[in-house]
C-alpha cells in the first residue's frame, strides 16, 4: 500500500507539471511579461535581472516570454503528433491482428520497413518534400511513431483475437466493424493511452531537435528548439542564459510527461514495456 502511494507521488508530480504547462500555454498572452516577437535592439543580450527575469536574446526579445509562448508550440506539436501516431498505429495494429493472415504479413513487413528507417532521415526527407510548417512538422514526427505503436497494439490485440468470445461473435454473424469496435478496441485502450503518453515526450524532443536543425518551427515564432539555434550557440559563452533556459524547459517538460506516463503504465498495465 505504501509502495503504491509512493509510485503515485512521482506520477502526481509529473501530472502537476503537465497541468501547469497546459495552464501556462493557455494563458500565455496574459502572463507573459513581453511580446515574444517584438524586436528591441535597445535591450539586446541583457543579463537576467528584475526587468527580464531570464534575460533577453540577440534581438532583445524577452527569454521568459518566448519560453512561455514556446510551450504552446511544444504542446501543440506534442499532442498533435502523439495522438495522430497512436490513433493511426492502433488502427493498423488492431487491423493487423484481427484480420491476420496475408493482411497481417504484409502490414508487418511494411512496419518493418518503416522501423528500420532512421528517424531523422525520414523527418529530413518529409520536411524537404512538404516544406516547413507546424502541420507538416507534426506529420514528419508522426510517421515514424506509427509502426512502433502498431507493434505494441498488435501484440495486445492478438491475445484478444484468440479469445473465444470473438470467435463466437463472428460465428453469430456480426460484421467486422462491430466486432472491432465492441470487442477489440475497448481492450487496447490501456496500451493506447500508454503509447500516447510515451509519445508525448518523444514528440516534444523531436520537435526541439528538428527546430534546432532549422527543419521545424520558423522564426520569429517562439519555440524551444528554435531558441537554441543560431545566436544561442554563437553567444553560448557570453550570454549562456540563451542556451540554458530553453534546454531546461525542454528537459523539464519531457521529464514530467515521462513521469506521468510511467505511473499511468504501472497503474494500467505493468507488464507492457515502453521506452
Amino acid at each position: 500500500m505504501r509502495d503504491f502511494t509512493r509510485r503515485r507521488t512521482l506520477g502526481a508530480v509529473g501530472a502537476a507539471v503537465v497541468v501547469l504547462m497546459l495552464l501556462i500555454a493557455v494563458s500565455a498572452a496574459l502572463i507573459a511579461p513581453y511580446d515574444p516577437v517584438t524586436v528591441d535592439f535597445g535591450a539586446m543580450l541583457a543579463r537576467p535581472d528584475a526587468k527580464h527575469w531570464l534575460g533577453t536574446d540577440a534581438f532583445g526579445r524577452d527569454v521568459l516570454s518566448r519560453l512561455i509562448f514556446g510551450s504552446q508550440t511544444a504542446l501543440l506539436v506534442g499532442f498533435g503528433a502523439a495522438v495522430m501516431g497512436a490513433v493511426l498505429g492502433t488502427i493498423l495494429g488492431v487491423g493487423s491482428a484481427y484480420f491476420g493472415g496475408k493482411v497481417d504479413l504484409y502490414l508487418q513487413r511494411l512496419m518493418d520497413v518503416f522501423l528500420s528507417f532512421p528517424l531523422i532521415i525520414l523527418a529530413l526527407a518529409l520536411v524537404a518534400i512538404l516544406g516547413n510548417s507546424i502541420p507538416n512538422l507534426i506529420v514528419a514526427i508522426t510517421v515514424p511513431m506509427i509502426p512502433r505503436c502498431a507493434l505494441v497494439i498488435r501484440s495486445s490485440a492478438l491475445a484478444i483475437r484468440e479469445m473465444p468470445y470473438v470467435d463466437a461473435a463472428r460465428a453469430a454473424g456480426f460484421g467486422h466493424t462491430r466486432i472491432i469496435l465492441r470487442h477489440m478496441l475497448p481492450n487496447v485502450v490501456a496500451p493506447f493511452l500508454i503509447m500516447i503518453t510515451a509519445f508525448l515526450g518523444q514528440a516534444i524532443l523531436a520537435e526541439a531537435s528538428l527546430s534546432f536543425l532549422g527543419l521545424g518551427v520558423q522564426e520569429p515564432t517562439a519555440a524551444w528548439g528554435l531558441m537554441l539555434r543560431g545566436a544561442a550557440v554563437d553567444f553560448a559563452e557570453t550570454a549562456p542564459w540563451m542556451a540554458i533556459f530553453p534546454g531546461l524547459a525542454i528537459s523539464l517538460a519531457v521529464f514530467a510527461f515521462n513521469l506521468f506516463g510511467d505511473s499511468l503504465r504501472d497503474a494500467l498495465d505493468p507488464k507492457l514495456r515502453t521506452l
Partner: protein
Amino acid sequence: MGLRGLRIFALLAALTVFAGFGSVDPAAAQDKPRLGGELVFVVPSEPPSYDAHAEETFGVIHPMAPHYNTLVRVDPFDKTGTKPVPDLAESWIISKDGMTYTFKLHRGVKFHDGSEMTSKDVKASYDKIIFPPAGVKSLRKEAYRVVEVVEAPDPYTVRFRLKWPESSLLLNLASPWNWIYKADILAKDMHWYEKNVMGTGAFTFVEHVKGSHWVGKKNPNYWDKGKPYLDGYRAIFISSSSAQVAAIRGERAFIQFRGFSPPERDSLVQALGPKITVQESPWDCLNFVSMHHEKKPFNDKRVRRALSLALDRYEGSKSLSKITLVRDVGGVQVPGTPYATPPAELEKLAGYGHDINAARAEARKLLKEAGAEGLSFTFKNRGIPHPYEPVGIWLIDQWRQIGVTVKQEFIEASAYHPMLKRGDFEVAMDFQCGFIVEPDLDLARFVTNSDANYGKHTDKMIDDLYQKQSRATDPEERKKYLRAFEKRILDEEAHVIYTIQWHRIIPHNSKVKGWTITPSHYLNNQLDTVWLAE
C-alpha cells in the same frame, strides 16, 4: 597591326606591372618574410569536384588555389580587391579601341610535372572556359560573351579579341576561378581536371582525405623565385562554425578564410588577446529583397517604395553588426571601392535618409494611396543562420512598424534557388555575391532579360543605363551612369530593396603574415605571399 600602337597599361596597375609585390606589401614593409612552417587553415566546405572552371564554391578555391596560377590576378595586398596585377602574364597591352588585349607570358614557368607552360596552355584553358565543347560544363561562359577569339601567336603571347569594348574585361580575366590547365591533358581528356590536380602554382598536391583534410607542399621549382615562403599547408574541412572557432581558439588552426560572425570574433579576441589579429572588410555580398512584379500589389511601385522606406538602415546596421555579418550601408557598389556611392548622395535615396519617422510616415501614406493599407504577405527566406535569419527577423520587425504584417517562411538551403527561379514567391530574400567588385559583374543580374531577375521587372531604362556604364571608358562618366542606374533601381522604381552590406571578419592567428583581407572570400588564396612568424 595598328592596334598595337598605344600602350595603355591596366587601369590602376601601371606601377605594379613589372615590379614584384614586395614593395607594396604593407606586412612585408615591416618584417622580412620567414621561411618554413605549415599553414593550417579551416575550410567550411569541401570541393565537390577539382575543376574550378565548373565549380563556384569557395570550398574549391581555398584548398586548391595554391596549386594553380591565373593569367592575371588581383593584387594580394590591395584591400579593395579591384587592382589587376600580373600572374602568369608579366605585362599586357590594351589596344586603343579597347578591342584587343595582348598578354606577354612569363618564361620558364613549369607545371608540377616539369613541362613548360606556354601560350597554348592559356589558350586551351580559356577555350574550355569560354567555348566549352558539348558535354563540358563551364559556369562562366556567359561572363565572356564579349570575347570573339583567344589566340596564341607565339609561345609567350596570348591575345583576346573582343566583339565590343568592355571596360571590365581585364578584372574579369583576374577571376580566381580561371586556373590555367595543361593543354596536352585537356586535349586528351576534358574531364581529367575534375578528379586530378596539375598546375603551375606555388604548392604541389599531396593528398585529399574525404571528409577530413587537403594537404599541399612547397613547389621547389616555383617560377616566382623566392616564393612561396611556407613549407606547405593543410586545409581542414569543418562544417560547424563553432568547431571552426574552437580550432582557431585552441591554436590548432591559424585561419579560416571565409569569415566569422561578430560574436565569434569577440570570443576569440577575448580568449586569445594579442595572439589574434582581426582583419575586417565590407564583403562583396548583400541580401536584398525581391518582389514579384507580376503579383499584386507588388506591381505598384508605391508599395515597393514603402517597403524600402520602412527600413531604418542606419539603426539596423548598428545593432545587426553586433550579432551577424552585416555592417555598412551602401548603394549598388561595395562601400570603399572605386565606384561606391558617396554617403552624401546615398542619403538622398528613398529609405537611406536619416529621419526615419518622416520616412515611415511617407511609407504609410504611399501604402494608403496604393490601397494597400494593412498589407500582409509571406516572406520567403533562406534557412541559413548568418546573416539570412537575423536580417529576416529585422526586416519583419521594420515592416511591422508601418503596419505591414509579414509571416516568414524559411526555405531549405537547397530548395531556395529553385523557388526563386520558379518565381514561387511574393516577396523573397535574394542575394548577390561577387568575386571581384566590378559594376558589370555585380549588376548584370538586374537587366530585364537576366536569368537572375527573379522579381521579373521589365525596365528599358535599366538595361540602357547598364550598357552605357559598361561601355564607358572614362571612370567619371561611368560613375554618372551608375548613379543614375542606382537611383532608378533603388529609389524611383524600387525594383529591389537593398538591405545592409555583408561584412567580412577574419580573426586569425597573429603569426599569419603576408595575407590581406579583400571584399571577397574567393580572392587571394594562392598563399604564395603568406608566411608564418615565429
